[in-house]
């Protein structure tokens, strides 16, 4: 299992559009993806779960990834979040 704490940097946080991108990316890997925020754990492959996380700008979330491709999965997801989901702000 790999774990990493990341801060959400885009202005709107994990809103619908960003959540869709995140979940789409997570689903490309066979590893299981769990996202944790303030003690709440959700399935990173579920858009509903991701939305209910209410991760606003500046909140920190923890990715826990387990499986064959965990390393590359973590790297990709981290890049997406750090790139502000390719949003302008």
């Amino acid at each position, binding site marked *: 299992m790999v774990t990493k704490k990341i801060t959400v940097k885009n202005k709107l*946080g994990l809103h*619908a559009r960003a959540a869709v991108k995140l979940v789409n990316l997570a689903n490309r890997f066979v590893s299981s993806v769990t996202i944790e925020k303030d003690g709440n754990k959700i399935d990173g*492959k*579920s*858009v*509903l*779960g991701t939305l209910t996380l*209410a991760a*606003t700008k500046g909140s920190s979330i923890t990715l826990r990834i387990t499986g064959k491709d965990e390393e590359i999965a973590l790297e990709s997801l981290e890049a997406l979040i750090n790139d502000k989901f390719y949003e302008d702000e």
Partner: protein
Amino acid sequence: MDYFRVRGTGVSPGIAYGEVLLTEKVVFSSKKESITKNRSVKEWERLQKASKRTKKQLEQIKKEVGSLIGEDHSFIFEAHLMILKDKSLLSELEKTIKHDLCSAEWAISQIHDRYNKIFESITDEYLKQRKSDVSDVLSRLYRNLKPQKRKKTDDKKDKIIVAHDLLPSEAAFRMNQGNILAIALDMGGATSHTAILARSLNIPAVVGLRNITKKVKNGDYLIVDGSDGEVIIDPPLAVQREFASKRDKYENYRKELQKTAKLKASTLDGVNFLLMANIELSKEVKPAFSLGAKGIGLFRSEFIYFQRTDLPDEEDHFEVYSKLAEDAAPLPVYIRTVDIGGEKNLPQMKIEKEPNPALGLRAIRVSLRDREMFKVQLRAILRASVQRNIRLLIPMITEMEEIEEVKLLLKEVKEELQSKNILFDENIPLGVMIEVPAAAAVSDKMAKEVDYFSIGTNDLIQYYLAVDRTNELVSHLFKPLHPSVLRLLKFIIKSAHKEGIEVSVCGEMSADPLSALVLLGLGIRKFSMNPIFIPRIKRALRSVECQNIEKIVRKAMTFKTAHEIEEYVIEKILFKHPTALLMQEVPLIM
């Protein structure tokens, strides 16, 4: 036959008559009926079928919206599709049906409640609103449990959309299909995206009707009067005729407007005047210009605050101001710093309730109390001023000291920006609203300190005559042509002219043809108003000789009462310029 008239807010002018197409708000089942185990398997199959139908619909909408108005708007349906096929949603539904032995309807209602509770507890406003996405999907799913046969031919007919509320994407989709006659909503306000969209597409719309969805059913006939903010259910023939003629008048008026917008803004004797727009959203710039506005005479920046629940940061301000500057360039934009407080209170500002808000902590008084917040706004305005078409306007100035304080803060902010090598207009004009009688009385002194005056006649008259015009017990005393008001205005205008600074009027006096003519006679050449009134004011001012109006007003100022002044001015103007006040062909509100 009985008929009802329902009042709302007209947010897009025009009149339409047609059949209701109700986009129902799904009422979720509240009764739980126990079923057998065998039956529950059937229920689960029924739900899966509904899910397939829903998926097909969403894919179809996504495709259509995408090709009609762009991928940007269709994205939300991608999210809806993902919510629909979310594993945790489906397994929760399956579990509820099979364990609780209940109908598919009940299961969806339960899950809907559960997610609503989760989203309710979220504090971030933007994310909180996402519950409507989940709710949308579940509603659609619920509706699809019972397959509905839609009559295809019926859908092609032009209809009036009646709904509780419309999501922007849904509104965009429906309006672009081009078969919408009008829109009537329970919810909504003038600045909602749906309202803006309706205006730009010339679709009459009335919002804030509270429970119109409960009062009508599919197939009912409605009149939607977006000009006066009224909806009439099942109107009898006589009422239909009345509105048909109102609609024709409106259509003619709209054609006239387009012609008027292109005409030159000068009086018969060649005196040029300038008409500008009072607006609240950057999106309003282009529509205002198409009505003939030659600049934004008043941008009410407090609307940046009204559209959110937290405090905007510098970037939020900057985004709005630079968009304004860009859309208006090279024409000027007068940005009035926040006029909050009084009746326009905001929860996020934490201003305590005051016994007398009109005389309390508002506008510049708030800004000078919370200087950091004020500096955030000043910085954003300065940064957006690089095209040199932004003017800074300070509301509710009462005394000279306030101007000095604003200047000091402005200097501080300018130095900060310079030290960071950030570009801005170093000579950004600084003006003040003259809307407190005290400021008017010392306007000769103030004219030496600022670059321009903007007279806010609404507040000025309210304070000067001590009349709250929203109080119907005294509103008849609110008289813009009261001799005292004309004297005060004359003094302000004289003060400005003496120092050679610009003076304009941005209150409602500008939008009333008679008052505007009097202002012209007093020496005003710049008027700013709600953009929809620009064509009629342009027409009034174009039909007179400025010299003659000046003479009439000079004489009128010797009279004792507002009544005498009004009578004299109307009589004289009509004698010389019989068409100046001719407004009959113009609907009261466009």
